[in-house]
């Protein structure tokens, strides 16, 4: 039986009727048409579906929609405020951290949380933070560089 849940996605309140087994990923992609969040595996291996749940990175494919009841969800669509790219988005674009781009939304969400919690991460901390987000194109080199540059840009 469906349950009514309410949650805020990128600052917008939603009230939705969902099956208890519906995942947060399905809710975002299918019910709210927020297709920026990607499904790479569906079982929490790749990190492509990472969103921030009350500010904490979560695999939306392993999170039931009902678990997000009353939560604030942030997705890649919410990163650019008023059309202005965040410093992380800008760094990803300019540094070549994006190739196929399929891991990018999850990677950006993980990195966003990292820089909020630790504005001056060293390389090891960056690599540790994104180690749950797989990328097959970049060897992570330019992603790590972009996160470092974004951290530096935030403090200029």
């Amino acid at each position, binding site marked *: 039986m469906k349950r009514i849940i309410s949650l805020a996605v990128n600052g917008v309140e939603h009230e939705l009727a969902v099956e208890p087994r519906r995942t947060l990923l399905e809710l975002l992609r299918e019910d709210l048409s927020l*297709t920026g969040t990607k499904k790479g595996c569906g079982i929490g291996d790749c990190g492509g579906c990472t969103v921030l749940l009350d500010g904490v990175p979560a695999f939306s494919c392993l999170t039931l929609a009902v678990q997000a009841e009353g939560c604030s969800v942030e997705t890649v669509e919410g990163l650019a405020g008023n059309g202005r790219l965040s410093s992380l988005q800008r760094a990803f674009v300019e540094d070549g951290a994006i190739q*196929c781009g399929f891991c990018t939304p999850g990677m950006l969400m993980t990195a966003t949380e990292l820089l909020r919690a630790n504005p001056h991460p060293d390389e090891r901390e960056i690599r540790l933070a994104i180690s749950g987000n797989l*990328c*097959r194109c970049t*060897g992570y080199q330019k992603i790590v560089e972009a996160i470092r540059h974004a951290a530096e840009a935030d403090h200029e």
Partner: protein
Amino acid sequence: MSNDYRILNTRAPRVDAVDKATGRAQYTDDLSRPNMLYGAILHSPLAHARILDIDTSRAERLPGVVAVVTWRDAGTEPYGVSPARYDETIFCHDRVRYVGDEIAAVAATDPDTAHEAVRRIKVDFEPLPLVLDGRHAMDDGQPQLHEQYENNICAQVHWRFGDVEQGRREASVIRTDTISSKMQDAAFMEPQAVLAEVDAQRNLTMFSSTQAPHYVQRTLAMALNHPLHKVRVVKPAMGGGFGPKASCSTAELATCLLALKTGRPVKFTFDREQVFLHSRARHQFLHTMTTGVRDDGTLAFLEHECILDGGAYASFGIATVYYAGSLLGGPYRLKNMNYDGYRVVTNKPACGAQRGHGAVIARALFEIQLDRIAEELEMDPIELRLKNVMDAGETTCNELFVSSFGMREALEAVRDSAAWKKKRALAGQTRAEGKGIGAACGFFVSGAAYPIYRSKTYHCTVVTKVDEVGGGVVVQSGAADIGQGSDTMLAMITAEELGVSLDDVRVQAGDSSLSVDLGSYSSRTTLMTGAAARDAARDVKRRILSAVAGRIDVPPETLDLKDGCVISLADPIDFSALRDEYLKEHVGFSDLPDSPKLSFREASRIAFLEIGAVVGTGEYRPPKLGGSFKGAAVGTSPAFGCSAQVAEVSVDLETGEVTVDRITGAHDCGFAINRTQVEGQMHGSMMMGMGEALMEQVIYDEHGRILNRNLAEYKIPTSLDMPQLDALIVESNEPHGPYGAKEVGEGAIMPVIPSILNAIHDATGVRINELPVTPERIVRALRRKSVCAK
């Protein structure tokens, strides 16, 4: 390299980067349509069995199921990648040949119903004996997979170049070594997805995560018996391909069949398990090589045998078995080479192309052999290689002509950048225990010279059109940006030629209705489609400049386009009459041109007013290349890329754990259209090669089932596994490539595995001849070594 380019050779951000960074980019699974159905496929649970009966009645009765299709709907006409080996049918009718082979498909109103319907299809099987070990697939008495493949041999190659016996007499050091690898998964992040729809005129449009819209269009039309001109294949944003997405899949065929049958849009997306089952990724290779070298370190001969375990169907496998031999023709001077290759079929998912098609494991063993020979000759391994590398203008023993070749420069670059001499000199002295350094080279095509089907087709066309309102430029191409950045390459070339900014160029690509383009495989797009885009832009420029020149009565050759304006190469020109005309058309507009120069916007508008549509075209077809021997077509290319790499590792001598500390690679891409993207291709190659060297393997049980069909147990490198990657760009100015450019997408993976393996040997003194080199294999080898020492 200094040059006058404004846009080429820079680090311009990708044209699709902002969309991808904001979630706006639409991948196939992000698309949906009103009234859309969801597809699901029934895969065989058995690796080899006769099909006695398929009963779909219980599935058809399920509410919400709109169509169920089997071979009865799809027919049994074979299709495949190469016309010489059509051995697949859309659905199995009499036999299944691997766990995952497709038997039926369903379209239903929601995904859950579609999956439930698949579960309700009943298939009666009679199990057949299995062939799972590629080593023994050819043996007498083995079960036979296909009538047309005697002894399970799908393709074989027997090449004799030069005189190996003469080489053997000249050689002073002769070694025989072997290597075996495992089947790989390409592990692209985006699982295959398809959306098919049909309009009232029976025009079939398929959106798909494909590397080769043109080939897939042909296969759909042929296998579905649908008019070719009524099939359109569109590739939306795409999350990687690396080879396996270059062949038409049953998912594509079945989804189109369901759309044709129901008249409704149908979407089907693989889950990750299905990506593994479908595979079409790297073969398992079993190589044996005997290499001879003369006293002075020059190569005397290579005798090479390879068995490729290709799984149940041919897919790209014929090309694979040829590439496994042909690409050892370079980058070294090697006059005498024999090759015997056998591509066998087994009851496992079909293998196909994957980054570095066919040549990666062959390269690994050959480069390991060179290190072992250097050791016997007491030569530095890089010195040995430098003694043998080819130079531009040379031809290999199998008739591959290298028109540009920065091999020597690349090798010297990594040697110096990684401080090779200093670190190598420490070996056995003051160096920390378990530290090692290794080097290797590589060689790869820059575009297959022949299409997959026999034809004198152009390999690509590009149509470039200037907006009739003036100012904007549209580039239309069938080329598939699979993540490597070909859309950006097309935009940069067009903007450079027309003197406009990247923001004024819009690329429409990856659509079979826009142009013929053979697709993103064999590292062909920059050289081939780049050349066509250059010519299309020049065609447009000529049309604009002649129209403008006609209006102001000057010779067109005295005009040029630069920095968004028309410039005069002769006397200054008064454009005020043209300016007035433009301004009169735009009363009430703001942002109107006011500099004394005539803007591109005005010039392109005036050209339209003079001549109508301003359209330029370009096309590319390689010149006739290659020798006349059988199979000479595979390996021929307008140009060849080459690369060198130094890997530094630390090995824990107790646990066998390998940490790659640093990789320094240099690749000769001819000319870097986009420096950031060239580095990105090199980094990605390093990562895939490192995974293949140390951790990646598809593991089967005795029933032919994949045990690790997920990304937790099929391990690919994470950010913690990857070291600092240094990518050095070498530019040798390829005469056959646009602006001197040639490949980087695949060649850069060639030296990765052997450089790491050579470094592990340097660190441990042991050689492992089975990939991946896991800690367990290292520990076992170290124990054997210590037992032998006692």
